[in-house]
Protein backbone atom coordinates (compact mmCIF):
# COMPACT_ATOMS: atom_id res chain seq x y z
CA UNK A 1 0.00 0.00 0.00
CA UNK A 2 2.63 2.46 1.11
CA UNK A 3 4.88 1.51 -1.77
CA UNK A 4 2.18 2.12 -4.31
CA UNK A 5 1.69 5.57 -2.80
CA UNK A 6 5.38 6.33 -3.18
CA UNK A 7 5.34 4.99 -6.73
CA UNK A 8 2.33 7.11 -7.63
CA UNK A 9 3.88 10.23 -6.21
CA UNK A 10 7.17 9.48 -7.92
CA UNK A 11 5.54 9.04 -11.33
CA UNK A 12 3.54 12.22 -10.91
CA UNK A 13 6.65 14.09 -9.83
CA UNK A 14 8.64 12.88 -12.82
CA UNK A 15 5.92 13.83 -15.30
CA UNK A 16 5.38 17.31 -13.83
CA UNK A 17 9.13 17.72 -13.46
CA UNK A 18 9.64 17.33 -17.19
CA UNK A 19 7.34 20.28 -17.86
CA UNK A 20 9.19 22.28 -15.19
CA UNK A 21 12.38 21.23 -16.91
CA UNK A 22 11.23 22.63 -20.26
CA UNK A 23 10.36 25.94 -18.61
CA UNK A 24 13.75 26.09 -16.90
CA UNK A 25 15.46 25.09 -20.13
CA UNK A 26 14.37 28.39 -21.63
CA UNK A 27 15.94 30.31 -18.75
CA UNK A 28 19.10 28.23 -18.89
CA UNK A 29 19.61 28.69 -22.63
CA UNK A 30 19.18 32.44 -22.35
CA UNK A 31 21.54 32.70 -19.41
CA UNK A 32 24.07 30.32 -20.91
CA UNK A 33 24.44 32.36 -24.08
CA UNK A 34 23.25 35.92 -23.53
CA UNK A 35 24.41 35.97 -19.86
CA UNK A 36 21.20 37.70 -18.81
CA UNK A 37 18.93 36.22 -16.16
CA UNK A 38 15.41 36.55 -17.46
CA UNK A 39 13.68 37.67 -14.28
CA UNK A 40 10.40 37.85 -16.22
CA UNK A 41 10.56 34.14 -17.04
CA UNK A 42 7.61 33.01 -14.91
CA UNK A 43 5.61 35.92 -16.25
CA UNK A 44 6.20 34.65 -19.77
CA UNK A 45 5.10 31.19 -18.66
CA UNK A 46 1.88 32.67 -17.31
CA UNK A 47 1.24 34.61 -20.51
CA UNK A 48 1.76 31.32 -22.37
CA UNK A 49 -0.78 29.69 -20.05
CA UNK A 50 -3.35 32.38 -20.74
CA UNK A 51 -2.70 32.22 -24.48
CA UNK A 52 -3.35 28.48 -24.46
CA UNK A 53 -6.38 29.02 -22.23
CA UNK A 54 -7.91 31.62 -24.56
CA UNK A 55 -7.20 29.56 -27.69
CA UNK A 56 -8.87 26.57 -26.07
CA UNK A 57 -11.89 28.40 -24.68
CA UNK A 58 -12.59 30.58 -27.72
CA UNK A 59 -11.55 28.36 -30.60
CA UNK A 60 -11.48 24.92 -29.04
CA UNK A 61 -7.82 24.42 -29.93
CA UNK A 62 -6.26 21.79 -27.69
CA UNK A 63 -3.27 23.17 -25.71
CA UNK A 64 -1.16 20.29 -27.04
CA UNK A 65 -1.73 21.74 -30.52
CA UNK A 66 -1.75 25.42 -29.65
CA UNK A 67 1.65 25.10 -27.99
CA UNK A 68 3.18 25.19 -31.47
CA UNK A 69 1.79 28.58 -32.61
CA UNK A 70 2.33 29.91 -29.06
CA UNK A 71 5.97 28.83 -29.14
CA UNK A 72 6.35 30.41 -32.57
CA UNK A 73 4.80 33.67 -31.39
CA UNK A 74 7.01 33.68 -28.29
CA UNK A 75 10.04 33.13 -30.49
CA UNK A 76 9.19 36.26 -32.47
CA UNK A 77 8.55 38.22 -29.26
CA UNK A 78 11.84 37.03 -27.78
CA UNK A 79 13.74 37.90 -30.94
CA UNK A 80 12.25 41.38 -30.95
CA UNK A 81 12.81 41.92 -27.23
CA UNK A 82 16.48 41.00 -27.44
CA UNK A 83 16.99 43.20 -30.48
CA UNK A 84 15.36 46.27 -28.96
CA UNK A 85 15.17 46.20 -25.19
CA UNK A 86 17.68 43.72 -23.84
CA UNK A 87 20.64 44.02 -26.16
CA UNK A 88 21.71 47.45 -24.86
CA UNK A 89 21.76 45.89 -21.38
CA UNK A 90 23.87 42.86 -22.20
CA UNK A 91 27.10 44.51 -21.09
CA UNK A 92 25.52 46.46 -18.24
CA UNK A 93 25.81 45.35 -14.59
CA UNK A 94 23.60 42.57 -13.29
CA UNK A 95 21.41 44.75 -11.10
CA UNK A 96 20.53 47.00 -14.04
CA UNK A 97 19.46 44.01 -16.12
CA UNK A 98 17.52 42.90 -13.10
CA UNK A 99 15.61 46.18 -12.78
CA UNK A 100 14.83 46.24 -16.50
CA UNK A 101 13.39 42.73 -16.43
CA UNK A 102 11.62 43.23 -13.12
CA UNK A 103 9.96 46.28 -14.68
CA UNK A 104 8.91 44.12 -17.62
CA UNK A 105 7.70 41.39 -15.26
CA UNK A 106 5.61 43.86 -13.24
CA UNK A 107 4.01 45.15 -16.44
CA UNK A 108 3.28 41.64 -17.70
CA UNK A 109 1.80 40.26 -14.51
CA UNK A 110 -0.39 43.30 -13.90
CA UNK A 111 -1.38 43.51 -17.56
CA UNK A 112 -2.62 39.92 -17.29
CA UNK A 113 -4.37 40.84 -14.05
CA UNK A 114 -6.14 43.77 -15.75
CA UNK A 115 -7.30 41.65 -18.68
CA UNK A 116 -8.23 38.40 -16.96
CA UNK A 117 -8.76 39.38 -13.33
CA UNK A 118 -7.28 37.63 -10.32
CA UNK A 119 -9.40 34.45 -10.51
CA UNK A 120 -7.80 31.13 -11.29
CA UNK A 121 -8.73 29.84 -14.75
CA UNK A 122 -8.69 26.21 -15.62
CA UNK A 123 -8.75 24.82 -19.15
CA UNK A 124 -10.95 21.80 -18.30
CA UNK A 125 -9.89 19.53 -21.14
CA UNK A 126 -12.47 16.84 -21.99
CA UNK A 127 -9.92 14.19 -21.02
CA UNK A 128 -8.62 16.00 -17.92
CA UNK A 129 -9.61 13.22 -15.59
CA UNK A 130 -8.77 10.23 -17.77
CA UNK A 131 -6.07 8.00 -16.49
CA UNK A 132 -4.34 4.70 -17.02
CA UNK A 133 -3.99 2.07 -14.36
CA UNK A 134 -0.76 0.15 -14.39
CA UNK A 135 -0.92 -2.27 -11.53
CA UNK A 136 -1.48 -0.11 -8.48
CA UNK A 137 -0.14 2.99 -10.18
CA UNK A 138 -2.62 5.46 -11.58
CA UNK A 139 -1.22 7.76 -14.26
CA UNK A 140 -3.09 10.85 -15.47
CA UNK A 141 -3.23 10.94 -19.25
CA UNK A 142 -2.72 14.72 -19.51
CA UNK A 143 0.41 14.48 -17.41
CA UNK A 144 1.83 11.83 -19.71
CA UNK A 145 0.99 13.86 -22.82
CA UNK A 146 2.45 17.00 -21.28
CA UNK A 147 5.63 15.19 -20.27
CA UNK A 148 6.05 13.67 -23.74
CA UNK A 149 5.45 17.03 -25.40
CA UNK A 150 7.97 18.69 -23.08
CA UNK A 151 10.54 16.02 -23.85
CA UNK A 152 9.89 16.40 -27.58
CA UNK A 153 10.44 20.16 -27.50
CA UNK A 154 13.57 19.74 -25.41
CA UNK A 155 14.86 17.08 -27.82
CA UNK A 156 14.27 19.40 -30.76
CA UNK A 157 16.26 22.11 -29.03
CA UNK A 158 19.10 19.71 -28.21
CA UNK A 159 19.16 18.57 -31.84
CA UNK A 160 19.18 22.18 -33.02
CA UNK A 161 22.20 23.04 -30.90
CA UNK A 162 24.05 19.88 -31.87
CA UNK A 163 23.37 19.43 -35.56
CA UNK A 164 22.62 22.79 -37.18
CA UNK A 165 25.22 25.37 -38.16
CA UNK A 166 23.28 28.11 -36.38
CA UNK A 167 23.07 26.02 -33.24
CA UNK A 168 26.80 25.42 -33.25
CA UNK A 169 27.39 29.14 -33.85
CA UNK A 170 25.26 30.00 -30.82
CA UNK A 171 27.25 27.55 -28.71
CA UNK A 172 30.40 29.20 -29.95
CA UNK A 173 29.11 32.56 -28.67
CA UNK A 174 28.46 30.98 -25.30
CA UNK A 175 31.91 29.40 -25.12
CA UNK A 176 34.01 32.27 -26.32
CA UNK A 177 32.33 35.53 -27.18
CA UNK A 178 35.42 37.28 -28.45
CA UNK A 179 36.42 34.30 -30.54
CA UNK A 180 32.94 34.11 -32.01
CA UNK A 181 33.05 37.78 -32.96
CA UNK A 182 36.54 37.40 -34.42
CA UNK A 183 35.50 34.63 -36.80
CA UNK A 184 32.72 36.87 -38.03
CA UNK A 185 29.62 35.56 -36.29
CA UNK A 186 26.78 38.03 -36.04
CA UNK A 187 26.60 37.94 -32.24
CA UNK A 188 23.65 40.31 -31.95
CA UNK A 189 21.55 38.19 -34.27
CA UNK A 190 22.56 34.96 -32.54
CA UNK A 191 21.69 36.49 -29.16
CA UNK A 192 18.28 37.46 -30.49
CA UNK A 193 17.77 33.95 -31.86
CA UNK A 194 18.72 32.50 -28.49
CA UNK A 195 16.38 34.74 -26.57
CA UNK A 196 13.65 33.79 -29.03
CA UNK A 197 14.36 30.09 -28.53
CA UNK A 198 14.37 30.51 -24.76
CA UNK A 199 11.00 32.21 -24.84
CA UNK A 200 9.66 29.58 -27.27
CA UNK A 201 10.51 26.97 -24.62
CA UNK A 202 8.74 28.84 -21.87
CA UNK A 203 5.76 29.57 -24.12
CA UNK A 204 5.40 25.88 -24.94
CA UNK A 205 5.88 25.01 -21.26
CA UNK A 206 3.16 27.52 -20.34
CA UNK A 207 0.75 25.93 -22.81
CA UNK A 208 1.51 22.53 -21.28
CA UNK A 209 1.25 23.88 -17.76
CA UNK A 210 -2.34 24.97 -18.35
CA UNK A 211 -3.29 21.32 -18.76
CA UNK A 212 -1.83 20.52 -15.34
CA UNK A 213 -2.74 23.49 -13.17
CA UNK A 214 -4.95 26.58 -13.08
CA UNK A 215 -3.73 29.83 -14.57
CA UNK A 216 -3.62 32.92 -12.36
CA UNK A 217 -1.49 36.06 -12.79
CA UNK A 218 -0.19 35.84 -9.24
CA UNK A 219 1.55 32.53 -9.80
CA UNK A 220 4.10 34.21 -12.09
CA UNK A 221 6.78 35.16 -9.53
CA UNK A 222 6.60 31.65 -8.11
CA UNK A 223 7.29 30.27 -11.59
CA UNK A 224 10.24 32.63 -12.03
CA UNK A 225 11.65 31.41 -8.74
CA UNK A 226 10.96 27.80 -9.67
CA UNK A 227 12.75 28.09 -13.00
CA UNK A 228 15.63 29.95 -11.36
CA UNK A 229 15.95 27.29 -8.65
CA UNK A 230 15.90 24.48 -11.18
CA UNK A 231 18.55 26.11 -13.32
CA UNK A 232 20.86 26.66 -10.36
CA UNK A 233 20.36 23.12 -9.12
CA UNK A 234 21.04 21.72 -12.58
CA UNK A 235 23.86 24.13 -13.34
CA UNK A 236 23.50 27.54 -14.98
CA UNK A 237 23.76 27.26 -18.74
CA UNK A 238 23.67 23.46 -18.79
CA UNK A 239 20.76 22.22 -20.91
CA UNK A 240 20.76 18.68 -19.56
CA UNK A 241 21.08 20.19 -16.10
CA UNK A 242 17.82 22.09 -16.56
CA UNK A 243 15.93 18.90 -17.38
CA UNK A 244 17.59 16.97 -14.53
CA UNK A 245 16.91 19.84 -12.14
CA UNK A 246 13.29 19.96 -13.30
CA UNK A 247 12.92 16.25 -12.61
CA UNK A 248 14.49 16.56 -9.15
CA UNK A 249 12.29 19.50 -8.21
CA UNK A 250 9.22 17.80 -9.62
CA UNK A 251 9.87 14.71 -7.53
CA UNK A 252 10.84 16.66 -4.40
CA UNK A 253 7.70 18.81 -4.63
CA UNK A 254 5.40 15.86 -5.21
CA UNK A 255 6.96 13.90 -2.34
CA UNK A 256 6.86 16.82 0.08
CA UNK A 257 3.28 17.79 -0.72
CA UNK A 258 1.98 14.25 -0.28
CA UNK A 259 4.18 13.03 2.55
CA UNK A 260 4.50 16.20 4.64
CA UNK A 261 1.99 18.89 3.70
CA UNK A 262 1.01 20.61 0.44
CA UNK A 263 2.42 23.88 1.73
CA UNK A 264 5.83 22.24 2.14
CA UNK A 265 6.21 21.94 -1.65
CA UNK A 266 8.28 25.08 -2.00
CA UNK A 267 10.19 24.34 1.19
CA UNK A 268 11.41 21.08 -0.35
CA UNK A 269 12.73 22.72 -3.49
CA UNK A 270 14.52 25.43 -1.51
CA UNK A 271 15.94 22.82 0.82
CA UNK A 272 17.32 21.08 -2.23
CA UNK A 273 18.66 24.40 -3.50
CA UNK A 274 20.52 25.20 -0.27
CA UNK A 275 21.96 21.70 -0.25
CA UNK A 276 23.20 21.99 -3.83
CA UNK A 277 24.59 25.49 -3.26
CA UNK A 278 26.48 24.31 -0.19
CA UNK A 279 27.86 21.11 -1.65
CA UNK A 280 28.19 21.90 -5.34
CA UNK A 281 27.69 25.61 -6.01
CA UNK A 282 28.13 25.29 -9.78
CA UNK A 283 25.07 23.03 -9.94
CA UNK A 284 24.87 19.32 -10.56
CA UNK A 285 25.91 19.45 -14.20
CA UNK A 286 27.39 22.93 -14.32
CA UNK A 287 30.89 24.03 -15.17
CA UNK A 288 32.65 26.51 -12.92
CA UNK A 289 32.51 29.91 -14.56
Amino acid at each position, binding site marked *: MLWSLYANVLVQGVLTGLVYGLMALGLSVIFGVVRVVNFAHGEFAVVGMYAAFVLFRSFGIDPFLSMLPIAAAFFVIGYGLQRTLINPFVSRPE*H*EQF*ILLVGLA*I*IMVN*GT*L*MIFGPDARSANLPYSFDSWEIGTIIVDKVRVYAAIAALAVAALLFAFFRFTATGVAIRACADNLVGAAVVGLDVKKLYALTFGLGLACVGAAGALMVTLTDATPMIAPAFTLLAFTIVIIGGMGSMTGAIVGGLLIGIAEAMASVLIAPSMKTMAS*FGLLVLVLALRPQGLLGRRA
Partner: protein
Amino acid sequence: MNPFATLARLVDEAPRRALLLLAALVAVLLVAPVALDRYLLSVFFLIFWFATVGQAWNIMMGFCGQLSLGHALYVGLGGYVGALLWVKFGISPAIAIVPAMLVAMAFGAVIGWLGFRFGIEGVYFALLTIAFAEVARIGFDNWSFVGGAAGFFIPVSAAASPVNLRGGPMLFYYVALAMMIIAFILCAALRRSRLGHAWLAVREDAEAARALGIDVFRAKMAAVVISAAMTAVAGVVYGFYQNNLFPSQTFDIARSIEMILAPIIGGLGTLFGPILGAFILTPLGQILIALVEKIAGRAIPGVNLVFYGAALMVIIWFTPNGVWPWLKKKLGIPEGRE
Protein backbone atom coordinates in the same frame (compact mmCIF):
# COMPACT_ATOMS: atom_id res chain seq x y z
CA MET B 1 35.42 54.67 16.84
CA ASN B 2 33.92 57.55 18.77
CA PRO B 3 30.55 58.30 17.18
CA PHE B 4 30.62 61.97 18.14
CA ALA B 5 34.08 62.52 16.78
CA THR B 6 33.03 60.81 13.57
CA LEU B 7 29.96 62.98 13.37
CA ALA B 8 32.02 66.09 13.95
CA ARG B 9 34.39 65.03 11.19
CA LEU B 10 31.49 64.36 8.83
CA VAL B 11 30.18 67.85 9.47
CA ASP B 12 33.64 69.35 9.03
CA GLU B 13 34.24 67.65 5.72
CA ALA B 14 30.93 68.55 4.12
CA PRO B 15 30.72 71.76 2.08
CA ARG B 16 29.00 74.57 3.99
CA ARG B 17 26.33 75.15 1.35
CA ALA B 18 25.31 71.49 1.35
CA LEU B 19 25.13 71.44 5.15
CA LEU B 20 22.87 74.49 5.21
CA LEU B 21 20.62 72.95 2.59
CA LEU B 22 20.48 69.69 4.53
CA ALA B 23 19.71 71.46 7.80
CA ALA B 24 16.95 73.43 6.09
CA LEU B 25 15.50 70.22 4.68
CA VAL B 26 15.51 68.52 8.08
CA ALA B 27 13.92 71.59 9.64
CA VAL B 28 11.15 71.58 7.05
CA LEU B 29 10.52 67.90 7.65
CA LEU B 30 10.45 68.48 11.40
CA VAL B 31 7.68 71.08 11.23
CA ALA B 32 5.88 69.68 8.18
CA PRO B 33 3.41 67.49 10.13
CA VAL B 34 1.52 70.64 11.20
CA ALA B 35 0.39 71.07 7.62
CA LEU B 36 -0.10 67.41 6.78
CA ASP B 37 -3.27 65.36 7.08
CA ARG B 38 -3.41 61.67 8.04
CA TYR B 39 -3.02 60.48 4.48
CA LEU B 40 0.03 62.60 3.73
CA LEU B 41 1.58 61.63 7.06
CA SER B 42 1.26 57.99 6.03
CA VAL B 43 2.83 58.73 2.64
CA PHE B 44 5.77 60.43 4.36
CA PHE B 45 6.06 57.51 6.76
CA LEU B 46 6.42 55.19 3.78
CA ILE B 47 9.00 57.48 2.18
CA PHE B 48 11.13 57.58 5.34
CA TRP B 49 10.70 53.87 5.88
CA PHE B 50 11.73 52.91 2.36
CA ALA B 51 14.64 55.34 2.57
CA THR B 52 15.80 53.58 5.74
CA VAL B 53 15.60 50.03 4.43
CA GLY B 54 17.02 51.23 1.14
CA GLN B 55 19.98 52.64 3.05
CA ALA B 56 20.41 49.29 4.82
CA TRP B 57 20.24 47.34 1.58
CA ASN B 58 22.63 49.81 -0.01
CA ILE B 59 25.32 48.75 2.47
CA MET B 60 25.28 45.28 0.99
CA MET B 61 24.81 46.04 -2.68
CA GLY B 62 25.96 49.63 -3.06
CA PHE B 63 29.00 49.46 -0.79
CA CYS B 64 30.01 45.81 -0.82
CA GLY B 65 28.55 44.67 -4.15
CA GLN B 66 26.52 41.76 -2.81
CA LEU B 67 23.07 41.51 -4.38
CA SER B 68 20.39 40.57 -1.85
CA LEU B 69 16.87 40.00 -3.12
CA GLY B 70 15.54 38.71 0.17
CA HIS B 71 15.67 41.69 2.50
CA ALA B 72 12.00 41.19 3.35
CA LEU B 73 13.33 38.37 5.54
CA TYR B 74 14.95 40.83 7.96
CA VAL B 75 11.90 43.10 7.94
CA GLY B 76 9.73 40.13 8.80
CA LEU B 77 12.05 38.79 11.48
CA GLY B 78 12.31 42.22 13.09
CA GLY B 79 8.57 42.74 12.85
CA TYR B 80 7.72 39.38 14.36
CA VAL B 81 10.29 39.53 17.17
CA GLY B 82 9.13 43.02 18.15
CA ALA B 83 5.44 42.14 17.98
CA LEU B 84 5.82 38.81 19.78
CA LEU B 85 7.85 40.22 22.64
CA TRP B 86 5.34 43.02 23.10
CA VAL B 87 2.10 41.03 22.82
CA LYS B 88 3.18 37.82 24.53
CA PHE B 89 5.66 39.15 27.12
CA GLY B 90 4.89 42.84 27.36
CA ILE B 91 8.40 43.88 26.44
CA SER B 92 8.52 47.37 24.95
CA PRO B 93 9.63 47.64 21.31
CA ALA B 94 12.20 50.17 22.48
CA ILE B 95 13.96 47.24 24.13
CA ALA B 96 12.83 44.61 21.65
CA ILE B 97 14.81 46.17 18.82
CA VAL B 98 17.90 44.60 20.39
CA PRO B 99 16.72 40.97 20.19
CA ALA B 100 15.12 41.78 16.82
CA MET B 101 18.49 42.94 15.53
CA LEU B 102 20.23 39.92 17.01
CA VAL B 103 17.84 37.46 15.37
CA ALA B 104 18.15 39.17 11.99
CA MET B 105 21.94 39.30 12.36
CA ALA B 106 22.01 35.57 13.10
CA PHE B 107 20.02 34.81 9.97
CA GLY B 108 22.14 37.22 7.95
CA ALA B 109 25.24 35.50 9.24
CA VAL B 110 23.95 32.06 8.21
CA ILE B 111 23.06 33.28 4.71
CA GLY B 112 26.36 35.12 4.41
CA TRP B 113 28.33 32.16 5.67
CA LEU B 114 26.60 29.77 3.27
CA GLY B 115 27.10 32.16 0.39
CA PHE B 116 30.54 33.63 0.91
CA ARG B 117 32.25 30.54 2.31
CA PHE B 118 31.40 28.64 -0.85
CA GLY B 119 32.09 31.50 -3.24
CA ILE B 120 28.46 31.95 -4.25
CA GLU B 121 28.17 35.29 -5.99
CA GLY B 122 25.94 37.53 -8.04
CA VAL B 123 22.67 35.98 -9.12
CA TYR B 124 23.47 32.74 -7.25
CA PHE B 125 23.78 34.62 -3.99
CA ALA B 126 20.64 36.59 -4.83
CA LEU B 127 18.69 33.37 -5.23
CA LEU B 128 20.02 32.10 -1.91
CA THR B 129 18.65 35.22 -0.20
CA ILE B 130 15.28 34.77 -1.93
CA ALA B 131 15.23 31.15 -0.87
CA PHE B 132 15.70 32.04 2.80
CA ALA B 133 12.95 34.65 2.66
CA GLU B 134 10.62 32.12 1.04
CA VAL B 135 11.46 29.43 3.57
CA ALA B 136 10.75 31.93 6.36
CA ARG B 137 7.45 32.83 4.73
CA ILE B 138 6.34 29.21 4.60
CA GLY B 139 7.69 28.55 8.07
CA PHE B 140 5.77 31.47 9.62
CA ASP B 141 2.71 30.50 7.56
CA ASN B 142 2.66 27.16 9.36
CA TRP B 143 3.77 28.27 12.83
CA SER B 144 0.62 28.52 14.91
CA PHE B 145 2.34 30.26 17.88
CA VAL B 146 2.71 33.38 15.71
CA GLY B 147 -0.75 33.08 14.18
CA GLY B 148 0.29 31.21 11.03
CA ALA B 149 -1.20 32.32 7.74
CA ALA B 150 -4.07 34.06 9.56
CA GLY B 151 -1.61 36.69 10.72
CA PHE B 152 -0.38 38.14 13.99
CA PHE B 153 -2.12 41.19 15.43
CA ILE B 154 -0.92 43.88 17.79
CA PRO B 155 -3.82 45.28 19.85
CA VAL B 156 -4.26 48.99 19.31
CA SER B 157 -5.27 49.98 22.83
CA ALA B 158 -2.66 48.23 24.96
CA ALA B 159 -0.62 50.63 27.10
CA ALA B 160 -0.65 53.57 24.73
CA SER B 161 2.70 55.27 25.03
CA PRO B 162 5.14 56.56 22.43
CA VAL B 163 7.87 54.42 23.98
CA ASN B 164 5.80 51.34 23.17
CA LEU B 165 5.21 52.62 19.64
CA ARG B 166 1.51 52.93 20.29
CA GLY B 167 0.20 56.13 18.81
CA GLY B 168 -1.13 57.93 15.77
CA PRO B 169 0.43 58.67 12.39
CA MET B 170 2.24 61.70 13.84
CA LEU B 171 4.27 59.47 16.16
CA PHE B 172 5.23 57.15 13.32
CA TYR B 173 6.13 60.10 11.14
CA TYR B 174 8.75 61.23 13.64
CA VAL B 175 9.96 57.73 14.44
CA ALA B 176 10.50 56.99 10.75
CA LEU B 177 12.12 60.38 10.18
CA ALA B 178 14.52 59.72 13.06
CA MET B 179 15.23 56.28 11.67
CA MET B 180 16.03 57.69 8.25
CA ILE B 181 18.36 60.34 9.65
CA ILE B 182 20.16 57.89 11.94
CA ALA B 183 20.54 55.40 9.10
CA PHE B 184 21.96 58.15 6.91
CA ILE B 185 24.50 59.27 9.52
CA LEU B 186 25.44 55.67 10.27
CA CYS B 187 26.00 54.91 6.61
CA ALA B 188 27.98 58.11 6.13
CA ALA B 189 30.20 57.14 9.06
CA LEU B 190 30.53 53.56 7.88
CA ARG B 191 31.53 54.58 4.41
CA ARG B 192 34.36 56.69 5.73
CA SER B 193 35.52 54.01 8.14
CA ARG B 194 38.19 51.45 7.49
CA LEU B 195 35.46 48.85 6.98
CA GLY B 196 33.73 51.10 4.44
CA HIS B 197 36.87 51.36 2.38
CA ALA B 198 37.30 47.60 2.60
CA TRP B 199 33.75 47.20 1.27
CA LEU B 200 34.40 49.47 -1.69
CA ALA B 201 37.58 47.57 -2.45
CA VAL B 202 35.72 44.25 -2.32
CA ARG B 203 33.00 45.65 -4.57
CA GLU B 204 35.45 46.90 -7.16
CA ASP B 205 37.75 43.90 -7.22
CA ALA B 206 37.63 41.19 -4.58
CA GLU B 207 40.91 39.61 -5.74
CA ALA B 208 42.79 42.88 -5.58
CA ALA B 209 41.28 43.59 -2.18
CA ARG B 210 42.53 40.23 -0.93
CA ALA B 211 45.97 40.98 -2.32
CA LEU B 212 45.96 44.18 -0.25
CA GLY B 213 45.38 42.13 2.87
CA ILE B 214 41.67 42.79 3.27
CA ASP B 215 39.79 39.88 4.77
CA VAL B 216 37.16 39.67 2.03
CA PHE B 217 35.04 37.11 3.83
CA ARG B 218 34.89 39.19 6.98
CA ALA B 219 34.11 42.38 5.08
CA LYS B 220 31.22 40.70 3.29
CA MET B 221 29.94 39.15 6.52
CA ALA B 222 30.06 42.54 8.23
CA ALA B 223 28.01 44.02 5.39
CA VAL B 224 25.30 41.34 5.64
CA VAL B 225 25.09 41.47 9.41
CA ILE B 226 24.99 45.27 9.71
CA SER B 227 22.49 45.52 6.88
CA ALA B 228 20.29 42.85 8.47
CA ALA B 229 20.35 44.60 11.85
CA MET B 230 19.35 47.96 10.35
CA THR B 231 16.57 46.38 8.34
CA ALA B 232 15.27 44.55 11.41
CA VAL B 233 14.85 47.84 13.30
CA ALA B 234 12.78 49.14 10.41
CA GLY B 235 10.88 45.85 10.57
CA VAL B 236 9.94 46.37 14.22
CA VAL B 237 8.61 49.84 13.42
CA TYR B 238 6.71 48.53 10.41
CA GLY B 239 4.99 45.81 12.42
CA PHE B 240 3.80 48.33 15.00
CA TYR B 241 2.76 50.78 12.30
CA GLN B 242 0.63 48.16 10.56
CA ASN B 243 -0.61 46.57 13.79
CA ASN B 244 -0.55 43.25 11.98
CA LEU B 245 1.86 40.90 10.28
CA PHE B 246 0.96 38.38 7.60
CA PRO B 247 3.70 36.03 6.42
CA SER B 248 2.41 36.14 2.84
CA GLN B 249 2.89 39.93 2.72
CA THR B 250 5.77 40.46 5.11
CA PHE B 251 8.16 37.96 3.54
CA ASP B 252 6.90 38.37 -0.02
CA ILE B 253 9.47 38.58 -2.78
CA ALA B 254 7.51 41.56 -4.12
CA ARG B 255 8.32 43.34 -0.83
CA SER B 256 12.01 42.53 -1.20
CA ILE B 257 12.00 43.98 -4.68
CA GLU B 258 10.06 47.06 -3.59
CA MET B 259 12.70 47.70 -0.95
CA ILE B 260 15.63 47.76 -3.33
CA LEU B 261 14.10 50.03 -5.96
CA ALA B 262 14.69 53.31 -4.10
CA PRO B 263 18.48 52.94 -3.75
CA ILE B 264 18.85 51.73 -7.33
CA ILE B 265 16.72 54.51 -8.79
CA GLY B 266 18.28 57.09 -6.49
CA GLY B 267 21.84 55.98 -7.01
CA LEU B 268 23.52 52.78 -5.92
CA GLY B 269 26.35 53.16 -3.45
CA THR B 270 25.59 56.81 -2.74
CA LEU B 271 24.38 58.17 0.58
CA PHE B 272 21.60 60.33 -0.79
CA GLY B 273 20.48 57.81 -3.38
CA PRO B 274 18.18 55.72 -1.16
CA ILE B 275 16.53 58.84 0.26
CA LEU B 276 16.11 60.51 -3.11
CA GLY B 277 14.81 57.27 -4.63
CA ALA B 278 12.22 56.89 -1.88
CA PHE B 279 11.12 60.48 -2.37
CA ILE B 280 10.63 59.78 -6.08
CA LEU B 281 9.10 56.30 -6.06
CA THR B 282 6.70 56.32 -3.10
CA PRO B 283 4.79 59.46 -4.17
CA LEU B 284 4.86 58.21 -7.78
CA GLY B 285 3.12 55.01 -6.69
CA GLN B 286 0.57 56.95 -4.62
CA ILE B 287 -0.11 59.45 -7.40
CA LEU B 288 -0.66 56.62 -9.86
CA ILE B 289 -3.19 54.95 -7.56
CA ALA B 290 -5.06 58.23 -7.08
CA LEU B 291 -4.92 59.06 -10.78
CA VAL B 292 -6.33 55.73 -11.85
CA GLU B 293 -9.16 56.08 -9.35
CA LYS B 294 -9.95 59.53 -10.64
CA ILE B 295 -9.94 58.56 -14.30
CA ALA B 296 -11.65 55.18 -14.05
CA GLY B 297 -13.91 56.16 -11.16
CA ARG B 298 -12.78 53.08 -9.26
CA ALA B 299 -9.61 51.29 -8.36
CA ILE B 300 -8.46 48.99 -11.14
CA PRO B 301 -6.02 46.55 -9.63
CA GLY B 302 -2.80 46.50 -11.55
CA VAL B 303 -2.99 49.70 -13.60
CA ASN B 304 -0.76 51.70 -11.31
CA LEU B 305 1.72 48.84 -11.17
CA VAL B 306 1.90 48.70 -14.96
CA PHE B 307 2.95 52.36 -14.95
CA TYR B 308 5.32 51.62 -12.10
CA GLY B 309 6.99 48.87 -14.10
CA ALA B 310 7.24 51.15 -17.11
CA ALA B 311 8.72 53.92 -14.95
CA LEU B 312 11.37 51.53 -13.67
CA MET B 313 12.33 50.52 -17.18
CA VAL B 314 12.51 54.12 -18.37
CA ILE B 315 14.60 55.26 -15.40
CA ILE B 316 17.06 52.39 -15.63
CA TRP B 317 17.30 52.93 -19.39
CA PHE B 318 18.21 56.61 -19.20
CA THR B 319 19.96 57.00 -15.84
CA PRO B 320 21.58 53.65 -15.08
CA ASN B 321 23.61 55.17 -12.25
CA GLY B 322 20.54 56.56 -10.57
CA VAL B 323 19.16 60.04 -10.22
CA TRP B 324 21.50 61.31 -7.49
CA PRO B 325 24.75 61.34 -9.54
CA TRP B 326 22.90 63.24 -12.26
CA LEU B 327 21.40 65.68 -9.74
CA LYS B 328 24.78 66.10 -8.07
CA LYS B 329 26.24 67.26 -11.34
CA LYS B 330 23.35 69.69 -11.82
CA LEU B 331 23.83 71.09 -8.31
CA GLY B 332 27.51 71.58 -8.99
CA ILE B 333 28.75 69.33 -6.19
CA PRO B 334 32.24 68.20 -7.14
CA GLU B 335 33.05 64.56 -7.92
CA GLY B 336 34.08 62.45 -4.95
CA ARG B 337 31.92 64.42 -2.55
CA GLU B 338 28.44 63.65 -1.39
